[in-house]
């Protein structure tokens, strides 16, 4: 039983690590996707397929947001712990510099 439990935990933290990797990779992927229109449109003709570009951008964009959402959800447990720490620290004494 103990073995299975340990295995489960290791697997979970492994997943968490990979999720952090995903969080790091996502903006790079996004950057490359956002650069795609450059590759499509050598300005040989005056008229670009603007509507197509727009549709592409406005499809890639929510896809990235969705991926970010999934990653943020998966990383929530880690953040939860850290957030609790932060709140505890805050309860001790807030930063009080005037701003």
């Amino acid at each position, binding site marked *: 039983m103990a073995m299975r439990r340990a295995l489960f935990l290791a697997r979970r933290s492994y997943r968490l690590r990979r999720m952090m990797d995903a969080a*790091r990779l996502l903006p790079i992927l*996004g950057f490359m996707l956002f650069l795609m229109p450059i590759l499509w449109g050598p300005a040989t003709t005056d008229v670009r397929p603007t509507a197509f570009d*727009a549709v592409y951008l406005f499809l890639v964009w929510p896809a990235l947001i969705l991926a970010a*959402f999934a990653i*943020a959800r998966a990383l*929530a447990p880690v953040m939860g712990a850290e957030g609790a720490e932060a709140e505890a620290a805050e309860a*001790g004494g807030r930063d009080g510099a005037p701003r």
Partner: protein
Amino acid sequence: MIAFRLLVLVCLLYVGMLFLVAFFVERRAARSGIGWLRSPLVYTLSLSIYCTAWTFYGAVGYAARSGLEFATIYLGPTLVFIGWWWFLRKLVRIGKSQRVTSIADLISSRYGKSNLLGVIVTVLAVVSAMPYIALQLQSVALSFGAFADAAPKGWAIEGPASTAFWVAVGLAVFTVLFGTRNLDANEQHQGVVTAIAVEAVVKLVALLAVGVFVVWFVADGPADIIARVNASQIAAWRLQPGRWIGLTFLAGAAVVSLPRMFQVMVVENGHERQLATASWAFPLYLFAMSLFVVPIAVVGLEMMPKGSNPDLFVLSLPLMLHQNGLAMLVFLGGFSSATSMVIMAAIALSTMVSNHVVMPVWLHFVAPRATLSGDVRRVVLLSRRIAIGAILAMGYGYYRFTGGGEALAAIGLISFAGAAQVLPAMVGGMFWRGATRAGAASGLLIGFTLWLYTLFLPSFGDTGLLSPAVMTQGLFGLAWLRPHALFGVDGLDPLLHALFWSIALNTLAFCAVSLMTFPSPVERLQGAQFVNAFERGPGAQGWSRGLAEAEDLLVMSQRILGPDAAQAFFGAQARAQGVEGLLPETTPEFVDRLERLLSGSVGAATAHAMISQIAGGAAVSVEDLMAVANETAQMMEYSSQLEAKSEELTRTARQLREANAKLTQLSLQKDAFLGQISHELRTPMTSIRAFSQILMGGGLPEADAARFAGIIQDESIRLTRLLDDLLDLSVLENGQVTLNETEVSLRTLIDRALVAAASGGLTIEREAGAEAVTLHTDADRLSQVFINLVSNARKYCDAARPRLKIAVRQRGAQVEVDFIDNGTGIPKDSQALIFEKFARLTDQSRAGGAGLGLAICREIMANLGGTIAYLPGQGGAAFRVSLPRRIARVA
């Protein structure tokens, strides 16, 4: 038609509503905590101040002019936010753990609490915010103008400039009321942030409403829009790769380096979980804001008359189509966008101005002269209010100066490029420990100067500060200094040109100077804390560790409380701690009390700020760290000293123990020796005395008398021999013997020994050939050893036919002489003892000696540079004498 008065009334009502929201929230927060206000939703919505009037009005105009390029302004921040794990998370963590109050504070704190950097960043931020604020004023003025155009009659305004002026005044008042209403340390402008969240909802709803109206009521749904897009003049836009990448980068840089964004993102952040939600929710907001931009632009271009300002399509379309309600909503949305940006920017900038410019100056020049209580709180608030007014005035000035003719997006980008100059110092400071203050300062100054010269000053146009001659021929007539073609690079458009040169040279200077200079200890500590932000828990800094010098705190307190009150307090605290004099230990409790005392006089926030910021406060954490490091070093040194001492003590104790054991052993040996000696001396003495007594009695037969006299003589000879042996041993043991070295043949020596030892009963086996060795040694002493060995064999060999074999062998410079008899030999456990004094294995009657023979042999051999050892396993008692052929001269 909407009357001007109604419009103004709606604005005032709207602002009043926001004020109530803020007021209510702050009341709630004060009474029952801040619970739901810390929700990620409010945080995300407050981030939406990124979308200003530029987005609300300008994006459509931008799309109408440059097609999809407008999207880069939102794609950059999207990338930054979905990449929050890289950068934003660390930024927020640092912001919280270092209690950063602004972006200037961040930079200054990272580079060793440098006030110089604080000032540079503040100036840079204020200057680069000018176009941005002007943009907001322009947009509000334009939106008023749009209503005026729609209903030319009955409007009592003189022109956009006057509208902009009154808007600026209104916003200044509003911000002063909003942002500097209180200075309580525990309130992170919760009210303002919530009001901004409300505004975020208003502007999003307004823009979406227009979008839905345009797509589904004006056009026939998405398919129709796509067809119209391809048919419209937008389709003629060209994607310039340089601008596409450059603007994406610029927007991404701006979203982290704009002072107001930093304010809501880092300073107002409640906990990191908010950021996790914002990582997808903020891009979603941007997406929603951008979604209908192209449709509105397309439809606007189609329907609006030629020459109408595309920046106003959002508003002018509903007006033209007589959708007054929608137009009013849009107006409020635009108003929200502008006001929220201006409020937050003014708050952030005024904080920077008061913390990094006014307060240091005030404390340096004014406060020392104010010997009695000076109201710091009033100074802080006043400086902020003045700063807010000044910032808005500068924004208005920029608007008037540039004539308000430019497209909104173009103005906004100037601002972005200015704010982005902070990026190298910021990113470098967070990820590179080698970044130094000098590097950051030079990078910032070079970037700022280039931005001013290539983008900001030219933006004033012909009316501006750079003459047309400078623009076309360069500064001082140097062609390579033309503002739009620096170093002869004239293939880029002005924005990209300015961005490229300023950021590139900024980064270059930052890196190069950082590599060449050496950071101070405080810088290095701060650098380590920033770069390794995740190795510490969040919010770990506080009064909880050692602190600034008590003397500094006293000096500061005297400035605020007056000398008498401050000294009385410090004295009382010192006495309470049991310390003599006026300077107590700066324990956390003491600093807490001091802060409370100061807050009673100048307000909590100021007191905290005085301690944490002005008295070297942000520096407190570092000095504290240094103190801790110092202490640790001292402790370590002390403990290593202790360790060394204790080691030494242990060593000494061990030596003493050993010496003691040796002494005890020696004492025992001496006792045993004395016992042996007395015994050895007593035995012959007893017989001598007994026989001499008998002789003295007389009357003995002659033969008996002679016999007794013989015994007496024998015993005295034995006694003499014993004493001789003892003396001999003592001399040998002390190494006082003088050796009489001669050349002698080994064979001669053995011959002599055999004769002297009267080896009559022994059969001797010798190897004549091997004995032909010439020795250079003390012949008498060596033969003494041989005699002893031979006589031992004679005395102790218990074989029926005793036999002694003398074997000689040469080993290099050594000669070995073995004396092996055929007796029973010596038992193994006695072998170690035989060379000791008085060691006799059998009763002494057989031996006829004192048992000193082998002990003397050993000492002689030691003196001759050789050894004598028992040789086990030879079938009888066997001794090996080994000695050098030539005695070594020792000293």
